């Protein structure tokens, strides 16, 4: 009851932080998709690059987020204190699921289907556009879904470098040992993650209809 009243008192703060949080996640996922999906497709055409590139994305995934911020801060242009550092870090974390799912999705398209396209005289680009990408789409979307849910959780750390978001409440709550304040950040973050997961899941289903 007390907690509920506290959350109500803070609703303006929580709403503002949720908006900042969504902004960080949306921008970084958009950038990660623009980089990750074409790169994943490129890797299926140049398989020798696949191991090092996916390996790099794998390594990024293992760097603890606070350490990654620490590395980024001194770098000019992409580092510093504020949104940029947070977005760069979130993009780096989102790359792995996007790259791997795009690559695996296209690799797993039945070779005989691709062969049929070739038999019909399709060029490489046409096969990609008309056969491989449509068939790989569910796997790519699953990658977007994983990356988004991950990013919503990770973006709570962005408050450490002054990028705002729901992590603000969580870090303040931790410094004051005030669990209500921690909840004020953690509950909306969890709700956002569930909502994003649900929406993207529905989108996947909706796309699946005409198959």
């Amino acid at each position, binding site marked *: 009851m007390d907690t509920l009243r506290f959350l109500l008192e803070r609703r303006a703060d929580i709403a503002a932080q949720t908006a900042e949080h969504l902004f960080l996640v949306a921008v970084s996922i958009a950038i990660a998709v623009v980089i990750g999906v074409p790169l994943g497709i490129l890797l299926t055409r140049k398989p020798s690059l696949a191991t090092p590139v996916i390996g790099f994305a794998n390594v990024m995934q293992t760097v603890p987020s606070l350490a990654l911020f620490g590395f980024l801060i001194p770098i000019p242009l992409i580092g510093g204190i*504020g949104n940029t550092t947070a977005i760069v870090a979130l993009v780096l974390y989102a790359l792995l699921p996007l790259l791997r799912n795009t690559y695996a999705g296209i690799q797993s398209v039945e070779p005989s289907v691709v062969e049929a396209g070739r038999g019909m005289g399709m060029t490489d680009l046409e096969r990609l556009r008309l056969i491989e990408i449509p068939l790989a789409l569910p796997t790519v979307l699953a990658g977007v879904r994983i990356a988004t849910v991950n990013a919503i959780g990770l973006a709570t750390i962005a408050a*450490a470098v*002054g990028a705002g978001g729901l992590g603000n409440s969580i870090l303040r709550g*931790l410094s*004051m040992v005030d669990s209500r304040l921690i909840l004020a950040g953690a509950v909306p973050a969890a709700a956002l993650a569930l909502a994003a997961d649900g929406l993207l899941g529905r989108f996947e289903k909706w796309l699946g209809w005409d198959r």
Partner: protein
Amino acid sequence: MNRFTKLGAMLLALVPACSGERPVVVGSKNFSEQVILGEMLAQLLEARDVPVERRLNLGGTFICHRALLAGDLDVYVEYTGTALTAILKETVSHDAEAVYRRVREVYRKDLGLDWTEPLGFDNTFAIAMKPEVAEKLGIRAISDLKAHEGSLRPGFGHEFLEREDGFRGLVAAYDLSFKNPPRGIELGLIYQALIEGEVDFVAGSATDGLIDKYGLTVLEDDRSYFPPYDAAAVYRPSTAARVPALAEVLELLEGNLDEAAMRALNRRVDDEGRAASEAVASFLAERGWLGAGAK
């Protein structure tokens, strides 16, 4: 001398630990000065062959306080003003002596904890700006911020944003309302954010070595908003009774660390990049405090 004596001292320190004697647990909050003070307590105890467990860099005032209350810590250094307003939730007073007496009394009576005499320095909050920005805008004191509340961008540690004697009290005392909401930034990064121009002013500590290093302008607290923050060790009396060397170490520090000494120590760590343990060891050697029984 050094390596073997050090190893010897470490082994000696292990002996009582192995024989089941409970180590003295020393804590600190998560900024350099606190880690230095925790390290100082720990090294002084170890020089007296007392086994020590360091739990330094804990996440802030409230975590240290809770841990001390719960008996997970035996001693850490607290500031009178912080204890009065942030822990005991009492109203701000500007009489340093009265604040000290009040917190010691309440700690003894209600919490079963004790305070040493003040160590000798006042680590009050310092609102700092880049000197060129302060000069350009003609800002000398905190009340001068009023004229620029539409454009200035504040940035603070997360604890300052939440505690009563932090940002909320500051804007109330000076009747400020900033158009840009304050940015919450990890405490260790606030000076960097200021130097990079991400924010225009920050709240640091008066004893921060980085204020000297960057030559920052500290705004005058012209309405005496910030209470006195005299540093003193808070400890569990039962531990001091059990370990006489703890009482001895605490007494040694009372009144013996002034602001200049603390700032110099902070600077060794924050500016010169030395490890807290090493900075403290050389400081203690300079003062001749490591010889057992030295006073």
